[in-house]
């Protein structure tokens, strides 16, 4: 079919503007955003807790203090394993993250379905598929990264509290700063990766909606 060349392609909306639009939407849907966020917070908190706690235990085992070794053994820690997490724990963490991934995808897909009319309207006003993809991608990613940041702090806090409760001052005397930092970075990356992965499918689903649906859907 002969393509018409008199009409140019639609202007692209730059990332900073998409960002502003998405963020102001999120602010006004704060309650809803918080619920989606909570899933990420919990999953990342769990991951972060496990990693940091493991780092503490390993540091205390390496310190090799007699009184501490007794304390560790009283708490069923196998000091000869070097405090390594067993495969079941990894599986558990993996499953938690997977559940969280499915959770965000689900929440975002619902947001897309709920807002079919909004998407259609925006397309009637001149939004391109690319704009819609970007807007939903930013929305989902921002929620995920914020959730991951909160989860990180929560996980760290709980790990410190739990360790202090059992091992008291030893926690800080053997504080494994580099290992803790690594755990934090790993958790943050996991959270970001998780939310970005989860953002892709809903964003494309949103962009595929036809503007005609804006007129068809009734409240």
């Amino acid at each position: 079919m002969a393509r018409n060349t008199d009409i140019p392609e639609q202007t692209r909306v730059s990332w900073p503007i998409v960002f502003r639009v998405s963020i102001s939407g999120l602010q006004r849907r704060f309650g809803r955003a918080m619920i989606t966020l909570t899933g990420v917070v919990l999953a990342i908190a769990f991951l972060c807790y496990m990693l940091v706690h493991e780092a503490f235990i390993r540091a205390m085992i390496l310190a090799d203090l007699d009184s501490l070794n007794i304390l560790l053994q009283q708490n069923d820690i196998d000091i000869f394993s070097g405090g390594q997490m067993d495969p079941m724990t990894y599986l558990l963490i993996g499953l938690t993250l997977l559940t969280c991934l499915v959770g965000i995808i689900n929440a975002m897909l619902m947001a897309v379905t709920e807002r079919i009319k909004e998407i259609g309207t925006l397309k009637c006003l001149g939004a391109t598929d690319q704009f819609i993809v970007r807007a939903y991608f930013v929305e989902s990613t921002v929620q995920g990264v914020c959730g991951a940041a909160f989860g990180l702090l929560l996980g760290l806090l709980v790990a410190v509290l739990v360790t202090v409760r059992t091992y008291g001052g030893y926690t800080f005397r053997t504080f494994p700063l580099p290992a803790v930092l690594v755990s934090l970075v790993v958790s943050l990356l996991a959270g970001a990766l998780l939310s970005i992965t989860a953002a892709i499918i809903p964003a494309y689903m949103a962009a595929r909606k036809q503007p005609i649906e804006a007129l068809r859907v009734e409240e």
Partner: protein
Amino acid sequence: MTIVSCRNVKKVFVMGKEEVHALRGITVDIDKGEYVSIMGPSGSGKSTLFNMIGGLDTPTEGGVEVENVKLADLNSSQLAWFRCRKIGFIFQSFNLIPTMSALENVSIPRVFAGKTPHEAREDARKVLDRVGLGHRLDHLPSQVSGGQQQRIAIARALVNKPLIILADEPTGNLDLHTGKEIIDLLNEMKHDFGVTVITATHDMKMLSCSDKIVQIEDGSVKSVDTQASVRVTVGSIDGETVM
């Protein structure tokens, strides 16, 4: 000057094994600056015809041309360009973005047209002022009345200075009095902006300001009347003449 030209437009929807003929060959011309009312019962195909003029749907057969551009030849990005700059959509249920203020709602088409957010806001402010909502800029759609929401929608449709306003039952969700105000506003905008207004409606109030009335029934044009040939009886609400 003909601005919209529909030539033998047919549309067949396939629902399962059944074929539904929504449009059975419609030929209509609309001139620049006209106020056209497309009337017909629900299911008559007027919404389908409407969607074709807005570039939202493509005919199975025949063609729709707007300003001599055949819409079926445009790709999705070109259609977005076309809808953004040439068409202003007004919907029955207003379709404002609930999380955006009046000003943001009206500025978004400007942003799509490539303006900076600052320029977009300035333009939006002017148009909102023009439709009488200069004092409601920061209100969310849920914080204003139905009539005011439709005014915001009209401002949004006009902000890019389109060729055509496509209004689908613009008074359908409004009471008689507010509906009348919206029709008057549309009519004023037609004169101020020199825009062509096409409405799909079964609101008889609309007839008084229509230049052309296209009656559609069962997917075909039943009649095309000019205002002079249609006699509308005057009724009144609250002692005020409405037609």
